């Protein structure tokens, strides 16, 4: 008889970003209070806590990039900055009474499925517990990816990743090397350029950049949004609707995006007068293939005399000299990596051991796959928020998160309805059928046909991150858990029901 030494909870949620906090709110609303939120850091916010680099903001309008159940009439700008988004998540935590559930400094070290007891054994930095259900909301943009550059260890200056910004380091008057031209880098460049002595941008692939229609949201608008909630809903609805209409161009007719390329080229031409620099900054792939970036200040910053653009990746570091793939040598005092995150190789997957004794990372070695973006075969009662093929190219991830939370809530309801000690394990056939359908639709999307390599694609070139449809479609397919897609697992000894009551009692 197994002694219950550990604390046991109904649900363990991993992470306290948008996904984890959203899950906590929905669980409470469902009447489930026996749950914990395990957070590796000392405060909530996830990606919006970790990314505090200068100029950090969301490139989805704030009124859409927020929970439907926690509207915020006070958003200060169309595209609010990181401090405001982080404060919003802190406020959600307080408003919905989530603090008692959160365990800070409790990084999850391992998760192991116990097939006898039908629960997860969770080892955290602050102790062990068991949980019937695990909701993994670790987020795709949480673990920084730093390329393995020869000689980097011997670099005498400062090195950090955009998501681990060292605010104690004073950049003023320094020679800074910025590696990467993704969404973070294009926000960092214009923010630090005026202060630094020299800024060298290492660009492996240029990005398409569109103007950002950012402005302050006026006091009148904010007052109206607070007094007349319908105006806020209308604003959100409009922002959502526009983006829904754009989806088919990304997923079905990438050539339509050619029109947008014209806009992006015009945007560049207005700011960059030097044809040689323009040539360097013009991408050779279809817009949308990599994430479309929004900025009004990126191109102007690149034309400043203290900025160099090296149209090549960083090959190696020799002392304080950075050598690009094209041979260019640059001296620098600090290197900032804007090189993104472990997206297609979800880091938590290495720590999760399922019913077959294999880790999720091993199961996913040929690419991530999960039923309705949420459950993987062989990992019973384990749901991933922002799982495989749930990412978006043009709209708010909060919409996708909330769809997955609907699925989570129905999952919990089905467990209750079925009753007793049971678990739901996605059938491999259902997972494969789902993945086949998604990959079939993926074939003609801009991410797969646009002629670029991006963080949507895994090492074998398969797109395991993007959702090839509208957010409304995803909402529809995650409304309910279909038990036909799941195997119902029961405690082995209790299978005989009353007839083997003796045995059942002995292990209970």
């Amino acid at each position: 008889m197994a002694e219950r030494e550990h604390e046991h909870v109904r649900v363990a949620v991993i992470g306290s970003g948008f996904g984890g906090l959203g899950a906590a709110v929905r669980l409470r609303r469902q009447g489930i209070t026996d749950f914990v939120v395990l957070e590796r850091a000392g405060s909530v916010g996830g990606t919006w806590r970790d990314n505090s680099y200068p100029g950090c903001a969301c490139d989805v309008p704030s009124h859409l990039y927020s929970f439907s159940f926690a509207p915020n009439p006070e958003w200060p700008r169309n595209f609010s900055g990181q401090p405001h988004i982080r404060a919003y998540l802190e406020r959600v935590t307080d408003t919905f009474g989530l603090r008692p559930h959160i365990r800070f400094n409790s990084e999850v070290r391992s998760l192991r499925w116990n097939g006898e007891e039908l629960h997860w054994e969770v080892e955290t930095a602050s102790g062990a517990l068991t949980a019937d259900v695990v909701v993994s909301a670790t987020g795709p943009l949480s673990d920084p990816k730093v390329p393995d550059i020869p000689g980097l260890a011997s670099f005498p200056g400062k090195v950090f990743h955009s998501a681990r910004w060292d605010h104690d380091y004073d950049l003023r008057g320094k020679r800074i090397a910025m590696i990467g031209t993704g969404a973070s880098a294009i926000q960092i460049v214009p923010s630090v350029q005026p202060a630094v002595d020299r800024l060298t941008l290492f660009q492996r692939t240029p990005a398409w950049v569109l103007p950002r229609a950012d402005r302050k949201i006026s006091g009148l608008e904010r007052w109206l949004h607070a007094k007349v909630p319908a105006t806020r809903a209308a604003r959100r609805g409009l922002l959502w609707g526009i983006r829904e209409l754009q989806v088919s161009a990304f997923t079905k007719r990438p050539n339509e995006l050619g029109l947008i390329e014209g806009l992006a080229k015009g945007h560049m031409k207005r700011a960059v007068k030097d044809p040689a620099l323009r040539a360097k900054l013009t991408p050779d792939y279809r817009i949308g293939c990599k994430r479309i970036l929004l900025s009004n200040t990126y191109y102007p910053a690149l034309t400043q005399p203290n900025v160099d653009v090296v149209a090549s990746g960083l090959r190696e570091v020799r002392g304080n000299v950075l050598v690009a793939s094209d041979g260019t040598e640059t001296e620098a005092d600090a290197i900032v990596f804007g090189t993104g995150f472990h997206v297609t190789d979800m880091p938590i997957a290495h720590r999760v051991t399922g019913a077959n004794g294999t880790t999720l990372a091993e199961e996913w070695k040929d690419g991530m796959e999960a039923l309705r973006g949420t459950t993987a075969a062989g990992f019973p009662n384990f749901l991933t928020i922002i799982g495989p093929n749930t990412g978006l190219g043009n709209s708010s991830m909060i919409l996708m998160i909330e769809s997955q939370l609907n699925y989570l809530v129905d999952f919990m309801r089905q467990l209750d309805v079925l009753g007793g000690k049971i678990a739901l394990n996605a059938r491999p056939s259902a997972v494969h059928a789902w993945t086949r359908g998604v990959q079939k639709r993926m074939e003609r999307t801009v991410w797969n046909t646009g002629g670029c390599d991006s963080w949507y694609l895994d090492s074998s070139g398969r797109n395991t991150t993007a959702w090839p449809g509208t957010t409304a479609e995803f909402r529809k397919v995650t409304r309910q858990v279909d038990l036909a897609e799941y195997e119902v697992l029961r405690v082995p000894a209790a299978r005989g029901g009353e007839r083997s009551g003796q045995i059942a009692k002995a292990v209970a």
Partner: protein
Amino acid sequence: MAPTPMTRGRYAPPAPRRRLTATSADGSRLHVEIHGTDEPGAPAVVLSHGWTCSTAFWAPVVRDLAADHKVVLYDQRGHGRTPAVGPRGYTTTALADDLVAVLGAALEPGERAVLAGHSMGGMTMMASSERPEFRERAAAVLLCSTGCANLSAESLVIPMRSPGGRRIAHQIVLGSRAPLGPVTALAKRILKYATMGPAATPEQVEACARIVHACPAGVRSRWGKVLAGLELTGGAARLDVPTAIVAGTADRLTPIVQSRRLASVLPDFLGLTELPGAGHMTPIEEPDAVIGRIRELVRDHLRSGGTTTTDLKETAR
């Protein structure tokens, strides 16, 4: 005047060997029929009919099984010869109470049986799964064309794309008190569309229509509302008896997805027989398939001597 069942052919209900009355937990009296052989030791089969049907629904199955089985039939409350009850008497708990009462009245002490339920009769089995009286008696169960939850959103009788719209439309249809009127050609066409497959013969449609039109509109509405709000997934998950399923692939009322879901949930599942092109009324549309499956269950789980089967299985586990 309510229509009467068929009087000739395979679908005409045979005369029972015995009639008796079972008294349910709330005092309701249920009409029970015993057919077939009175030879001692003959295997017993208990049949539970579905929404708007009656004992007559099982006619082709009884005609076959009666040769070498003891066959027990009963009318669910409000149907056939069992009187209707007050408005609060229509619940899945009442379905279980009634079945348990019938088992107690019609079977000998300690006698076990193969139980088959069609549609709401199948739901009766799920609702009864945790009753000790049911567990003592049930050697095996056959579920025909049934489901455990979410019928109003998943039924395909009203062809609407939106699940929300379908849910509301089906709730209205299921709960409707509109009289069905006499059995006319139009009424039969509607009934065939909603409940039977394209291959159903005119005789089969006629037999179903006569049975369904005999159900009082009030009773139909009361039970329809129970079906619209059904949640018996838990009951199915605890139906700890060897259970087989038979369902038609063209079933609009309880679509085949419902059977596939049951297949996932049932703890001791023997298999799903999908009948291509058949609709919801499988015991009338495909009586031979249903009879064949019942005979198999009797052979494998009842005839080989009741408790020994269980013992063997337990060792195997």
